[in-house]
């Protein structure tokens, strides 16, 4: 991953973070809420190669850690999304060629978001954070997965084009 792409990816995540915190979080979803940021981050991680996925995971986590409403220690999301990126990079080939099967890709992203949230909860519990009852947490995780399945097909084509545009000639 080139330095230019790192900067552009970071800028992209900042914009996405602003949209998430300013607009998406204002919507009262019937079941829990929807994290556009996580859905896009996991999608990008899934599209990248091994090293690219790791760097993308880390950068997206660092930006998410800047959330002023978060109770988690700074760096927790970076750790989790780097771990998720590693899992994706290692296992992606064994699952399928995701780009050729949009349905599988969407499900893969939804599962990724759910796993990320569950690991976040687990880490939070280990660090002594209060995250509420198990039933409530499950609703949050399942709600996020549901809305990810609903909304990911809407932004996925645009995301693919933006990513193609940001690639250097060598990376293409």
């Amino acid at each position, binding site marked *: 991953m080139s330095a230019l792409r790192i900067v552009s990816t970071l800028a992209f995540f900042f914009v996405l973070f602003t949209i998430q915190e300013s607009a998406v979080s*204002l919507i009262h979803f019937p079941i829990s809420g929807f994290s556009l940021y996580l859905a896009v981050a996991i999608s990008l991680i899934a599209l990248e190669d*091994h090293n690219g996925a790791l760097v993308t995971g880390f950068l997206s986590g660092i930006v998410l850690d800047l*959330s002023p409403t978060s109770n988690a220690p700074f760096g927790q999301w970076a750790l989790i999304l780097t771990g998720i990126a590693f899992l994706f990079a290692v296992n992606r080939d064994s699952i399928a060629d995701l780009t050729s099967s949009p349905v599988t890709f969407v499900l893969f992203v939804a599962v990724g978001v759910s796993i990320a949230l569950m690991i976040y909860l687990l880490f939070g519990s280990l660090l002594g954070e209060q995250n509420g009852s198990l039933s409530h947490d499950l609703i949050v995780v399942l709600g996020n997965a549901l809305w990810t399945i609903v909304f990911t097909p809407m932004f996925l084509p645009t995301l693919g084009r933006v990513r193609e545009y940001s690639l250097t000639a060598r990376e293409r």
Partner: protein
Amino acid sequence: MARGGGNRSRLLLVILLVTALFFITLDLRGVSLTKGSRSVTQTILSPVQRTVSTIFSPVGRFFSDVKNFGKTNAELQQELALNKQLKAQLAMSADTKGQLSQLKAVLDLAGRGNYKVAAARVIARGSASSFSQTITIDAGSASGIRPDMTVISQNGLIGVVKSTTSSSAIVLLTSDPSFRVGVRIARSQSVGVLSGLGSTIYSLVLLDPAGTIKTGDILLTNGSEGNRPFVPGVPVGAVVGVDNSTASLTQTATVVSYANLNDLGVVAVILGAPTTAPSRPIQPSPNPTVTVYVTPAPTPQVSSLISPTPTPSAQPTKKK
């Protein structure tokens, strides 16, 4: 791992994980760099959130509006407003009865509700990527708002100020799992601790082992030292279920909040509470000074036959 890309990839993974762990350690040790970064983010975000909130708020209520489709909106709003008003009146009335029954300070009751507040608009809600329940309001330290101040809506307590910038503040909602507030039951004045559970249902644990909780009991904030983080007497919610388990030492109950945390538009931050609030000692006003004017009756003119002693010459006493 061999499939993952060799030594370089492994090294990159280790560096990134170690960096993340380094940040976590710094944060847990309270290094201001990581705390400050979130404050800077809030400062940058709040103007954007304020603008987007103005444009985006009708869209934000889309899903809740769909649920009420077909109902006469005006009627619904009227009924809701009346319901909220009655609930608030009921809470205050029950609290007043409880206080009077224990012969507590009557003067404190007169001051209840006489708070100095700063009104603010909700411009953002907590992110779905974290499990914390917060809102962001468009007033901050420039309006006199400081961390650990009580935040109320028209129906009662909704949270406490978590952090501030000059023009915005983050409010930790009562529904947050880490939220705790001391409450008292208006009927019996028993004290307990109310905890958020992540939804509009709360858990109440009574501190008094001999105390009792009844369904329908009204809860009010107990107040904190110096009125921060909580001012006393703010309606919190009502008991909807009591856990009568004999195994526990104290009674527990399920409480429903008066305030609808999903429909917060305008809130108020309590900047100052009345000085005669119930949590503070009552200073009785000084007794009035009684001034007595003494005017002696006129000395009787005694005849010379029976006046062996001299007659005292009485002078009217003047007030000093």
